[in-house]
């Protein structure tokens, strides 16, 4: 339990979670019977909450050109999540057409078998993603999630 407490405090110190979220997690840690010293790990709720809290919240796109042009875009990843959930309402024939067209472009992605768990995994793995483009003329493009 001590490790879990340290993990929560570490996330708070690094600014990945707010004081309120840390408080909720610590409460969950104390009240959840699974989070006993014998169990040695966080309970289900706290584990899920911790995973959510440490997941990236925003997708950033930053473009800086040598001419002085700048583009900064910050998009909440929850918007991406909510938008992708809406794909389940696309009729099957249209979805098959999307899959076919994407496969033709080299992206074999089956939207018909897209589950909410996959979505969460996709969003949380975006933390590892970072695109850095440095052009010859000095222009830079950065795409990352944080």
């Amino acid at each position, binding site marked *: 339990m001590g490790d879990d407490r340290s993990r929560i405090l570490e996330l708070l110190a690094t600014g990945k979670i707010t004081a309120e979220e840390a408080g909720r997690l610590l409460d969950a840690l104390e009240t959840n019977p699974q989070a006993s010293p014998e169990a040695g790990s966080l309970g289900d709720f706290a584990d899920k909450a911790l995973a959510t809290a440490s997941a990236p*919240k*925003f997708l950033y796109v930053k473009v800086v*050109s040598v*001419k*002085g*042009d*700048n*583009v*900064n*875009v*910050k*998009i*909440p990843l*929850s*918007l991406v*999540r*909510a*938008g992708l*959930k*809406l794909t389940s*309402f696309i009729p099957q024939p249209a979805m098959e057409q999307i899959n076919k067209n994407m496969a033709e472009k080299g992206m074999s992605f089956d939207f018909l078998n897209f589950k909410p768990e996959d979505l969460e995994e996709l969003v949380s793995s975006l933390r590892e993603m970072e695109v850095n483009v440095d052009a010859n003329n000095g222009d830079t493009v950065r795409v990352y999630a944080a």
Partner: protein
Amino acid sequence: MKCPPYAVSMRIADDERTKFRMWFPVFILWPLLLVFVLLTLIATLFADLFTLISGRKPGYTRFLLGVVGVAGETRGTEVFIQDRSNNGRIVAFTVR
């Protein structure tokens, strides 16, 4: 599900001098939005009922709720564009 955005701000400036600034309190439109969503909800519930009777999978109500959810998730979106080749034009857009 988050509540819908309460404000949208937009700024357009040339050479750092603000030419146009708008802060629109979207929360003023919430009652209108609520009425619209409730009316649409009634329609979608009927549509789902008829879809269910006809033996197909209903989804209109879930779609409506999904759209409302997407609207709520736009909170926090920020766009900043600075174009030096066009008198240093700055366009900034924020949804709160």
